[in-house]
């Protein structure tokens, strides 16, 4: 099918030549650009400094030391980003030869972005990670142990709360937090008054929690919830509550000291705790999942009287529900006291070598210093990770922070080999009982077996590497 688009004879050859030259140059440019791109996968339009600034080479700073630049990545949380910018300025004033470049990612894509940029050979010298991801990051060989001369194991364990040892793998610490968070009981004081309960007397034991939840629950004539006595959202914080609080409180253990075995099923405690958690929805009927889509929304809007939440919820609660009257109490206890702690920790990647490694170590020392931890509490509202900083009277006595801080000494941070799957398995076990009527024992047995298999696979891989 040949169609003459225009009479070629009419076109002067000079013009044709001109078009050709112009066209070939365009083609060349496009090819160059494409060729340049194909060598590097880029991720989602974040400015990432893959290469070090040329200014590093051989330049001397005011203090006579060679200049060095380190890249620091953390997730996008306005309060954290703002404070970090201030802290970087403070740090650079102390160490004029070091420049710290901060890059941020949206929280829900943090892992994807980081993981997508790393294979492309771009990456930070220091990175802020959720502690539950550390085993994966360490197993992949992406992080290096913290330099022993600045952070000896003895020193870290003397200064930090015991649960920070979740960041200790193969005998070395790979990351340290500036701040930590614990779970506590949030309760709506207005709803307490409405139910003729004393807001100064929050439930302190398992039994009291059930009892109080029943008194707070309000249903309409059709038996539908108007107010949940106790928000029940297993996929939010409750799975953490189970592993790090309930199991320990019932006198059981989470995992073995060598982190190879899941011990929930070793004693009666694991099943008892599992049943206790489920019965809020199944037996006592004081709450149900997805009420107002999730527990936080239900609590925020005054439709849930009590909720197990983390100190990280405080900022959003104040912002979204400024008129909500609520108070905080330690997580209700049983045979033992326990709660869950979690943290975001700063790690040094394998990219940092030589002068960069020294600079990164200096920056990490600064980020874990008492002064910075205090600034962090003020601005971000997370709790100090060091014992002597957190346990100061001004924090312990604080009405809101106090209950979170009081629990730090007996808080646990479960060692996750796969945060996502471990959570999925827990939710699945809960759903089996709730939706399919599978007996508690059977769902629980499956949960233990499946979780154990994750551990076995993880350790099989680790042992193979040795």
């Amino acid at each position, binding site marked *: 099918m040949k169609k003459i688009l225009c009479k070629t004879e009419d076109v002067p*050859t000079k013009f044709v030549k001109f078009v050709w030259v112009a066209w070939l140059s365009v083609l060349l440019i496009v090819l160059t650009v494409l060729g340049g791109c194909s060598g590097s996968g880029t991720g989602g339009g974040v400015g990432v400094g893959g290469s070090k600034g040329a200014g590093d080479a051989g330049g001397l700073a005011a203090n006579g030391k060679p200049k060095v630049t380190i890249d620091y990545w953390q997730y996008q949380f306005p309060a954290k980003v703002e404070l970090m910018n201030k802290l970087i300025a403070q740090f650079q004033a102390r160490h004029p030869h070091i420049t710290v470049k901060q890059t941020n990612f949206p929280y829900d894509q943090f892992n994807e972005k980081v993981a997508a940029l790393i294979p492309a050979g771009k990456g930070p010298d220091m990175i802020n990670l959720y502690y539950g991801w550390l085993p994966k990051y360490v197993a992949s060989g992406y992080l290096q142990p913290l330099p022993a001369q600045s952070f000896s194991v003895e020193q870290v364990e003397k200064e930090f709360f015991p649960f920070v040892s979740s960041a200790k793998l193969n005998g070395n610490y790979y990351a340290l937090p500036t701040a930590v968070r614990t779970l506590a009981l949030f309760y709506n004081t207005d709803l307490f008054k409405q139910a003729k309960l004393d807001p100064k007397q929050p439930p302190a034991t398992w039994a009291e929690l059930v009892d109080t939840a029943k008194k707070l629950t309000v249903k309409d004539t059709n038996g539908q919830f108007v107010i949940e006595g106790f928000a029940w959202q297993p996929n939010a914080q409750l799975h953490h509550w189970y592993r790090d609080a309930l199991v320990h409180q019932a006198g059981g253990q989470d995992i073995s000291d060598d982190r190879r075995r899941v011990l929930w099923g070793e004693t009666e405690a694991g099943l008892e705790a599992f049943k206790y958690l489920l019965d809020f929805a199944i037996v006592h009927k004081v709450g149900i999942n997805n009420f107002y889509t999730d527990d936080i929304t239900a609590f925020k809007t005054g439709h849930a009287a009590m909720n197990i939440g983390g100190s990280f919820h405080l900022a959003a609660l104040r912002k979204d529900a400024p008129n909500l009257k609520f108070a905080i109490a330690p997580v209700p206890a049983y045979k033992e006291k326990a709660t869950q702690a979690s943290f975001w920790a700063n790690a040094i990647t394998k990219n940092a070598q030589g002068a960069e490694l020294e600079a990164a170590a200096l920056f990490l020392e600064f980020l874990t210093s008492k002064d910075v931890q205090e600034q962090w509490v003020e601005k971000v509202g997370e709790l100090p990770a060091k014992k002597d900083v957190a346990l100061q009277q001004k924090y312990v006595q604080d009405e809101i922070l106090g209950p979170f801080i009081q629990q730090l000494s007996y808080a646990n941070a479960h060692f996750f080999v796969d945060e996502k799957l471990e959570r999925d398995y827990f939710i699945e076990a809960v759903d089996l009982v709730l939706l399919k009527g599978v007996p508690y024992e059977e769902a629980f047995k499956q949960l233990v077996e499946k979780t154990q298999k994750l551990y076995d696979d993880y350790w099989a891989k680790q042992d193979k590497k040795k």
Partner: protein
Amino acid sequence: MNPWFSVKKQKYVFIYSCLLIPLLFFAAIRLLPMLYSFYVGFHEWDLLSSEQTLVGMDNYTALFKDDVFVQSLSNTAVYVLVGVPGQMALGLTIALLLHRIIRWRTLFRTIYFIPFVTSVVAVSWVFRWMLMPNGIVNHMLISIGVDPQLLLGSPTQAIYLVIAAMIWQGIGFQMLIFLTGLQQIPRMYVDAASIDGANAWQRFVHISLPLLRPVLVFSVIIGSIDYLQSFTQVMNMTTGGPLNSTISVVLYIYELAFKQFNLGLASAATVILFGFILLLSLLQLKLLNRKMDY
């Protein structure tokens, strides 16, 4: 320029080289990554590490032993088998109705089309609010004397509710395609059939439907590919739950890749999905594109 390279030939070279640019772009952005995922599918690769170990077919065997993956395949089949016919039937019904009216046609067309251009995430969340245990849907059920349902919290109901949300969003697009198809049918045929005494149903079955065939083929293929790639609504309405009853292949691929960092498995799953889409498209082209004789 070469003397034997005539101006006419130059013109064709020019045209083809113009076409080369989008082709190069397509190759770099689409084709190469696709071929790369075939390659990765035969390797074990943790996204965070630079090591890629060759494992042959291990990823594929692991996937077919993986309950969640098998479940995601069967769910995706439900998405396609319920979603595509549902969307087409409703789209065709609305198109036929709109085709018969003259007044307000544009208004109705716009109303039906708006959901298609609304953000999928926003729509999914609105449905989520309507379908929560204490949402408006249960409220209405109670008011007509029906027991409240688990809806999105139920392993049997959730998938159909997600499909309903997808159909609701896709209906406008479907309607527009059919409307265009209906307007292509010469009035003459319909009038001739009326004179011969064919009633509306007969006219539809014997005239409109056969003549809509090319449009139907297009819709089935595009729709199937769409529903095979169900992701956004599932992600935002149920995240694949409860008990993996709504998880789709694409959502599972996403979780394997970016939540578990298992790029090998994720790539293998992508290749399997690619195979399904290819097979289905070929099958539909063969079945529906037979020569038409009138």
